[in-house]
C-alpha cells in the first residue's frame, strides 16, 4: 500500500534523474521515460481499482503519524484523476517521441524528457497530497516544470508568453504561501484533515475569508474569470505537446485543489453564490473569447477557460450529484483537451501553422485528421454520445435537482455556452476543414508524404488516434465512470471518511 501511493511521484523523479544522466543516449532516455510512465499508469490503475468502492488509502511519509508527518492520501477522486492523467501523460509522451523521431520538433529532447517526468511527479503529488504545504510543494514542482517546458524552443513569442505565464503563476504561488501562513496562523496545523477538524472551532467569518482567498489562489491557476487572462496568452504559444499537457492537466489540478479545499476544508461555509457567479462569467467570457479567435490553438484555449466554468458551476451547485458531475466533467475534459491540442499539433505539421486565416479544406488534405478533430470537438461541445454529453447531463441533472434562480441562470449560461462552443467549433470546421484546400497546403502535404520523417508523423497520428479512442472509451464506460464519480462525490460531501483515514488510524 505504501508503495502504491508513493510510486506515482517517486518513480517519475527517479526516472527524471536517470533521463538527465542519460541525455546523450536519446533512445535510452526515451525508453526510460516511457517505462516510467508505464509504471505510473499501471500503478494508478491499481490505485483506482483499490479505491473505487470509496476506500481512502493513506500512507504516512517517513512513518510519522498524521499531523506531524506528511500524509499521502488517495481517495476515489484523486485516484480517478491520477489514472486518467497518467494515461494522457503517457500518450502525449509517445506523441512527443514520435515527433522527435521524425525530427519534427525544435524542442530539446535531452531536457524535455526529464522535465516532463518532473511535471508528472508534480501532478501526481498534487493529487495525492494530504497536506496543505505538501500540496504547495506539489504545485511548485508542477509549475517549475511547466516554466521550463513552456520555454522549450524559445522564440520571441514564447519568451513573451512564458513571461506572462511565469509571473502570474508566481503571484498565485506567493498568495498560496500566504494562504498557508493564514491557515497555520488560525489552526496551527497544515495537515488537510487536521485543518478540516480544527477549522470547526474557528470563527465562521474568518473561515469564509480563507475559503474565498483559496478560491482566488487556485482560481488563478485554474483560469476562472476574471483571473483567466494569462491562459490564452500563454498556452497556445508553447509547442504542441506542451500546450496539450498544460491544457489537459495543469488547470485541472488547480480545479482539483479548488474542489478539495472547498469541500474538505470549507465545506461548512457556503460560498456557492460566489461560485455560481464566477461560473457564469467564466463560461460566457471564455466562449466569447473563443468565438473571435483566428488561431485554432487560441480558440481552444479560450474554450478551455469557458469549460472550466462548467466545473465551477457544479461545485457551486454543491450537491452529491453536482460533484459527481464535476468529476465526470474533469475526466472528460482532461482527455478531450489533450486530444484537441494533439490534433492541432498534427494540423501544424500538415499546414505549417494553426491560423484559420489561411487554412482551407483540411478534410481533403487528410480525412483521418478531420475525423480526429471531429470526434473530440463534438465531445467538447457536448454532442452525444460522446463523453462531453455524459458530463453535461450529469451537471444539468444536478442543477435542475437543486433549483433556485441563480442555478437556473447558470444553467441557462451553460446552455448558451454549449451552443456557442458548437458555433466556435463549426467555425473551425467550416473554415479550416471544409472548402477547397489552399494550393500551398496540398504542396505541404505532398512534401510531408515524400519526406523522410513520415514514420514519426505516422506515429504521432497513431498516438492522436489512441487519444481519440480513449475519449470514446470514456463515453462507452460512462456507467462505471459515473459510479466512481458518485462514490467520489459522496466522499467529498461527507469528508469524514477522509478525515478518519488520515487521523483516525493510529500508529500501525
Amino acid at each position, binding site marked *: 500500500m505504501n508503495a502504491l501511493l508513493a510510486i506515482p511521484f517517486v518513480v517519475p523523479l527517479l526516472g527524471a534523474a536517470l533521463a538527465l544522466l542519460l541525455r546523450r543516449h536519446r533512445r535510452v532516455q526515451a525508453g526510460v521515460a516511457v517505462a516510467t510512465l508505464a509504471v505510473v499508469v499501471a500503478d494508478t490503475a491499481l490505485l483506482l481499482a483499490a479505491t473505487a468502492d470509496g476506500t481512502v488509502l493513506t500512507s504516512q511519509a517517513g512513518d510519522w503519524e498524521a499531523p506531524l508527518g506528511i500524509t499521502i492520501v488517495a481517495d476515489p477522486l484523486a485516484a480517478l484523476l491520477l489514472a486518467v492523467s497518467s494515461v494522457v501523460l503517457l500518450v502525449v509522451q509517445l506523441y512527443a517521441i514520435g515527433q522527435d523521431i521524425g525530427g519534427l520538433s525544435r524542442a530539446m529532447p535531452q531536457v524535455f524528457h526529464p522535465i516532463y517526468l518532473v511535471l508528472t511527479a508534480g501532478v501526481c503529488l498534487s493529487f495525492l497530497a494530504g497536506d496543505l*504545504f505538501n500540496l504547495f*510543494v506539489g504545485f*511548485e514542482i508542477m509549475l*517549475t516544470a511547466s*516554466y*521550463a517546458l513552456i*520555454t522549450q524552443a*524559445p522564440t*520571441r*513569442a514564447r*519568451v*513573451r*508568453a*512564458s*513571461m*506572462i505565464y*511565469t*509571473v502570474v503563476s*508566481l*503571484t498565485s*504561488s*506567493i498568495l498560496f*504561501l*500566504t494562504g*498557508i*501562513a*493564514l491557515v*497555520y*496562523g488560525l489552526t*496551527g496545523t*497544515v495537515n488537510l484533515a487536521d485543518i478540516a477538524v480544527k477549522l470547526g472551532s474557528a470563527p465562521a467569518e474568518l473561515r469564509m475569508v480563507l475559503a474565498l482567498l483559496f478560491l482566488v489562489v487556485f482560481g488563478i491557476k485554474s483560469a476562472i474569470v476574471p483571473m483567466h487572462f494569462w491562459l*490564452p*496568452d500563454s498556452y497556445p504559444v508553447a509547442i504542441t505537446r506542451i500546450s496539450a499537457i498544460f491544457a489537459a492537466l495543469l488547470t485541472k489540478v488547480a480545479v482539483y485543489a479548488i474542489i478539495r479545499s472547498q469541500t474538505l476544508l470549507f465545506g461548512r461555509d457556503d460560498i456557492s453564490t460566489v461560485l455560481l457567479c464566477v461560473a457564469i462569467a467564466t463560461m460566457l467570457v471564455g466562449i466569447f473569447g473563443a468565438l*473571435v*479567435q483566428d*488561431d485554432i490553438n*487560441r480558440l481552444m484555449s479560450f474554450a478551455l477557460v469557458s469549460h472550466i466554468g462548467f466545473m465551477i458551476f457544479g461545485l457551486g451547485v454543491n450537491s452529491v450529484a453536482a460533484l459527481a458531475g464535476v468529476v465526470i466533467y474533469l475526466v472528460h475534459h482532461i482527455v478531450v483537451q489533450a486530444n484537441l491540442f494533439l490534433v492541432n499539433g498534427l494540423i501544424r505539421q500538415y499546414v505549417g501553422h494553426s491560423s484559420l486565416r489561411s487554412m482551407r479544406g483540411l478534410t481533403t488534405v487528410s480525412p483521418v485528421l478531420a475525423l480526429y478533430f471531429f470526434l473530440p470537438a463534438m465531445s467538447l461541445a457536448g454532442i452525444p454520445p460522446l463523453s462531453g454529453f455524459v458530463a453535461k447531463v450529469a451537471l444539468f441533472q444536478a442543477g435542475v435537482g437543486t433549483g433556485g434562480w441563480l442555478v437556473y441562470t447558470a444553467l441557462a449560461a451553460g446552455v448558451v455556452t454549449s451552443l456557442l462552443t458548437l458555433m466556435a467549433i463549426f467555425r473551425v470546421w467550416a473554415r479550416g476543414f471544409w472548402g477547397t484546400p489552399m494550393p500551398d497546403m496540398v504542396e505541404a502535404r505532398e512534401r510531408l508524404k515524400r519526406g523522410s520523417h513520415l514514420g514519426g508523423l505516422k506515429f504521432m497520428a497513431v498516438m492522436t488516434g489512441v487519444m481519440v479512442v480513449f475519449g470514446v472509451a470514456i463515453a462507452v464506460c460512462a456507467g462505471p465512470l459515473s459510479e466512481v464519480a458518485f462514490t467520489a462525490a459522496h466522499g467529498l460531501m461527507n469528508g469524514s471518511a477522509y478525515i478518519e483515514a488520515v487521523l483516525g488510524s493510529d500508529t500501525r
Partner: protein
Amino acid sequence: MSAPGFTLVVVAAVLYSSGFYLLLQRSLMRVVFGILVLGHAANVSLMLTDRAITLPPLLTEHEGPLSDPLPQAMALTAIVITFGVTTFLLALAYRVWLGDENDEVPADLEDRRIGRLAEPEDSA
C-alpha cells in the same frame, strides 16, 4: 492567547504592498524585484504565525519556550523555492532583453489584433 506583535504586522503590510506594486510594473527587473520582496513578505508572514519572540528551536542549547519550528521549516523551503524560481525568471528576463533590447513585458500581439478588429465594429 496573544496576537503577534504589531510591528511585524506592519512590516508584512509594507512588504506585501511594495511587492505588489513592483509586480505591477512594466519593467521586468522590477517584476523580479517584486517577486523577491513578496518572497520575503511570505516568509515574514510565516514567522508571524509564531506569536512571540522565543528561543531558537535547538534542543541542546536552551531551556525554556522554543520558537515554533514548523513555520521556520516551511519558510526555509519557501526561500529555497523562491531562489530557484527567481533564477529562472532572471534567465527569462535576460532572454526577453536579448530579443527586445529592453526589459519590458510586452503585451500580447494577438490580443491587440483582436482589440483592433473590434474598432471598426464600434464606429459602425
